[in-house]
């Protein structure tokens, strides 16, 4: 008699049922869909759905199904041309909506309600754009230091302490982490340090004696540098997320990778050039007063701006301008930016936060009838080859996009004009999504066409089905009834694996599919070990049921050992790998767990169920 504990049957049953439930949504496949979100990010409501659907019906677009998902309206179509037609129609008719092309599962609504979704597909399986950005953390630190230098100047002036120079220490282009404040002999270093203690809180201050006078060195601690780097990267991620959302991409991924990288995955994006352009643009605005006391024309001829001013050229007019160095407000202080149409042409309507609004109010009140300019600052990196060596150059473009006389007092809400229609839209988008004050540079870019993705998934599934069929057939021939048991167990293994992957929402890549196929191949091993043992025992003349018991018991240590080694390889790959390779590692690692469970518990339960109770068992079909 073979026996197997009842709770184990129950456990296996429950696990299998749950796995079937979680894996089931993958079976239905998907339809082309259109995702519609409101531009102001307010969740879509059910009563806003009907007008869109009926409008599309009027436009002769056949909407298969519509529902609200996560605050967005999802429309499903039966073909890609219908989907594209719908996109164009919605885009033209509803300016307040952002649309994104995507795929939606055909699984019945009941699955979605329960939160059961199919595995998301990786970019290699559905096409899209992959970008890896390098964040210029060094630049961010020096900006931070510039800010401290300004604070130091202001604090020393307020405390009436004379100083010669405040500058960021540069030691041969390496990471800078300190500023130097040079004091003349008449200034007391201790008094200076006291004055600096408050504005430069937490920064290490040291005094250095100079031939004449002294210097205070303010050095950032490593913790401060790290904090600043993390802050800069977090800020870039937020901005990139906002921009991706503004562009209307469905299921985007924006995540930090390593110390100073960010990877962006945009499924379904095809117009990559445009998207790359907008995503990586480092743009911010500065509002400055014009210097009306000095002549800009004279400065342009001499090439030197008078103290406290900076020389610019008006981008469209081409005439020189002198702007005061003080900045009234910057793009960081914006709370909203939208493109509008005014009598003076396309414009961006801006709202500032309270502090910037106050500053703007004060300045406009004091400077009525004087002129103010808007400077658009863009950063980009150019790489060229000089004498066979790669040289990268960071370029900051400063453009005066608008200058106008202050006609009335205003504070936190106003328009800027002087733009072309397309520019106004893009600028509003860039400003709204938050300015990128830290430079980012794409170091890796991959575009995968949707047809290639389709090819990849077809090939992967094809290989999976044929490979599994081959294994099933071979097992059934080689081990007969026991082979069929192994086949059932293998099938359960694939279901379990699919359920785990769907639960984890780990995206499935082509190497991931390869991992599933390999798991099937390797999961057989445990069964083979057991069955070969049973055969050995039978050959020794042991009774069938005792042979089964001995087979499972004696094979256990070999099964456990042989899986641990693959587990090690899987985990290392999981840690080191990125993208699709990590997908492979995840599948490989989870596959070991599921195949151990199914081979050890599942097949034992099944075999016990079949042979356990039979008293007159003389032969095993193995």
């Amino acid at each position, binding site marked *: 008699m073979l026996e197997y504990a009842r709770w184990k049957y129950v456990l296996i049953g429950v696990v299998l049922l749950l796995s079937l439930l979680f894996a089931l949504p993958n079976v239905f496949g998907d339809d082309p869909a259109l995702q519609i979100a409101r531009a102001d990010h307010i969740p879509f409501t059910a009563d806003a759905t009907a007008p869109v659907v009926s409008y599309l019906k009027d436009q002769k677009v056949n909407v298969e199904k519509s529902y609200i998902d996560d605050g967005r309206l999802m429309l499903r179509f039966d073909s890609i041309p219908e989907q594209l037609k719908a996109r164009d129609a919605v885009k033209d008719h509803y300016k307040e909506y952002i649309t994104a092309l995507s795929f939606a599962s055909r699984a019945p609504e009941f699955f979605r309600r329960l939160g059961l979704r199919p595995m998301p597909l990786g970019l*290699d399986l559905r096409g899209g754009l992959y970008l890896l950005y390098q964040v210029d953390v060094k630049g961010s630190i020096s900006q931070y230091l510039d800010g401290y230098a300004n604070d130091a100047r202001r604090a020393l002036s307020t405390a009436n302490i004379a100083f010669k120079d405040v500058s960021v220490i540069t030691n041969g282009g390496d990471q800078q982490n300190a500023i130097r404040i040079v004091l003349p002999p008449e200034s007391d270093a201790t008094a200076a340090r006291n004055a600096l203690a408050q504005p430069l809180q937490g920064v290490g201050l040291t005094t250095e004696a100079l031939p004449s006078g002294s210097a205070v060195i303010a050095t950032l601690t490593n913790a401060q540098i790290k904090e600043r780097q993390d802050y800069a990267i977090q800020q870039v991620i937020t901005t990139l997320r906002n921009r991706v959302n503004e562009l209307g991409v469905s299921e985007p991924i924006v995540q930090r990778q390593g110390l100073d990288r960010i990877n962006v995955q945009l499924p379904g994006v095809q117009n990559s050039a445009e998207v790359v352009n907008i995503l990586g643009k480092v743009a911010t605005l500065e509002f400055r007063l014009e210097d009306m006391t000095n002549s800009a024309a004279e400065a342009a001829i001499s090439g030197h701006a008078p103290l406290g001013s900076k020389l610019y050229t008006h981008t469209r007019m081409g005439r020189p301008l002198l702007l005061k160095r003080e900045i009234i407000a910057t793009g960081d202080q914006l709370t909203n930016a939208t493109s509008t149409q005014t009598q003076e042409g396309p414009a961006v309507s801006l709202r500032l936060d309270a502090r910037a609004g106050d500053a703007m109010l004060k300045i406009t009140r004091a400077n009525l009838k004087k002129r103010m300019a808007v400077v658009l600052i863009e950063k980009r990196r150019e790489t060229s080859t000089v004498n066979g060596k790669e040289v990268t150059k960071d370029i900051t473009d400063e453009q005066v996009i608008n200058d106008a006389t202050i006609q009335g007092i205003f504070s936190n809400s106003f328009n800027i004009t002087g733009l072309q229609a397309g520019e106004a839209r893009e600028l509003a988008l860039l400003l709204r999504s938050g300015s990128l004050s830290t430079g980012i540079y794409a170091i890796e870019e991959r575009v995968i066409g949707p047809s290639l993705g389709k090819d990849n998934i077809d090939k992967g599934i094809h290989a999976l089905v044929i490979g599994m069929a081959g294994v099933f057939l071979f097992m059934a021939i080689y081990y007969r009834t026991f082979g069929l048991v192994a086949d059932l167990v293998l099938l359960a293994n694939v279901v379990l694996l699919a359920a785990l992957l769907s639960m984890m929402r780990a995206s499935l890549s082509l190497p991931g599919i390869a991992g599933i196929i390999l798991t099937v191949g390797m999961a057989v091993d445990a069964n083979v070990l057991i069955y070969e043992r049973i055969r050995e025992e039978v050959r020794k003349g042991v009774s069938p049921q005792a042979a089964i018991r001995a087979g499972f018991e004696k094979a256990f240590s070999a099964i456990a050992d042989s899986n641990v080694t693959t587990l090690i390889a899987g985990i290392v790959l999981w840690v080191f790998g990125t993208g699709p390779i990590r997908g492979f590692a995840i599948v490989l690692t989870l596959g070991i767990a599921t195949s151990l469970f199914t081979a050890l518990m599942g097949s034992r339960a099944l075999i016990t169920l079949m042979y356990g109770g039979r008293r007159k068992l003389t032969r095993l079909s193995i």
Partner: protein
Amino acid sequence: MEFFKGETNFPFMATRKVWYTLSAILMIGSVVSFATRGLNLGIDFTGGISANATFAQTANVDAVRTKLTEAGFKEPQVQNFGSSRDITVRLPPDPSQNAKVVREKIESVLKSVDSSAQVRQLEVVGPQVGNELKTSASWALFFTLLLIGFYIALRFHTWRLSLGAILAVIHDPILVLGIFSITQTPFDLAVVAAILAVIGYSLNDTVVVFDRIRERLETNRRMASDVVLDQSINQTLSRTIMTKVVTSIVVIALLFLGGPVLQGFSEALMIGIVAGTYSSIYISSAIALDCGLTAEHVFPSEKKVAVDHLP
């Protein structure tokens, strides 16, 4: 059905000099090729530009190459990819060109050769990314071997078995690298993943054989070691072959149906599976034997230690 009726009795240990020689030749050949020819590294590792395009009819590879050179691309590599209508274009890293410009340029060159051309995939990888990947792939290989080495050392009580297992495990990835180097098969990130999987799988067989050796040694403490090893390998032989046949079925399915993206990956697995089977049968146990493995090493006879349990 059974591969072998009844028990087999192949004299694996007696012929081990032959297998040592064969392995030595394979290893030396691999290392020499690896050192002199190197690997045909994909753009994952070198950085650069890679584009896949598809044509309505058979692609004219030579015309594409000539036109690309005329358009100012340096050393373009153009090859068929999967089918005669698909091509892949590879260009060395060119920092002065960004992806947008390159895409437009490649598209226009391809369209000038054949107006039906369609760029289906474009990858631009910066050289620094490639270099980092090379480093992290090497670390991944190193750590896997190291951890597996630890595991083996802990698992098998005696360094004789551990050494046999470790040498067999190192044997297999070297052979894969060697064959990839000799044939100059494109070596991409997926191949690294396959090699790591091969390391895991290859050990799998060795572990099963060693497990049996341990069991046999426990029950037959007086038997000569080479007889025990031969018996252990013979007894696990049908399992070893059966598992490899089944794994090969799926890998062959991948190789022929998985498409060009998984080509290198599947080839590496296939080589690894064959090498792994060979090394675990012929190499790992033989090395343990030549290191003087006896039952005493695996199960030391209990030393009588006087322990006074009385209070």
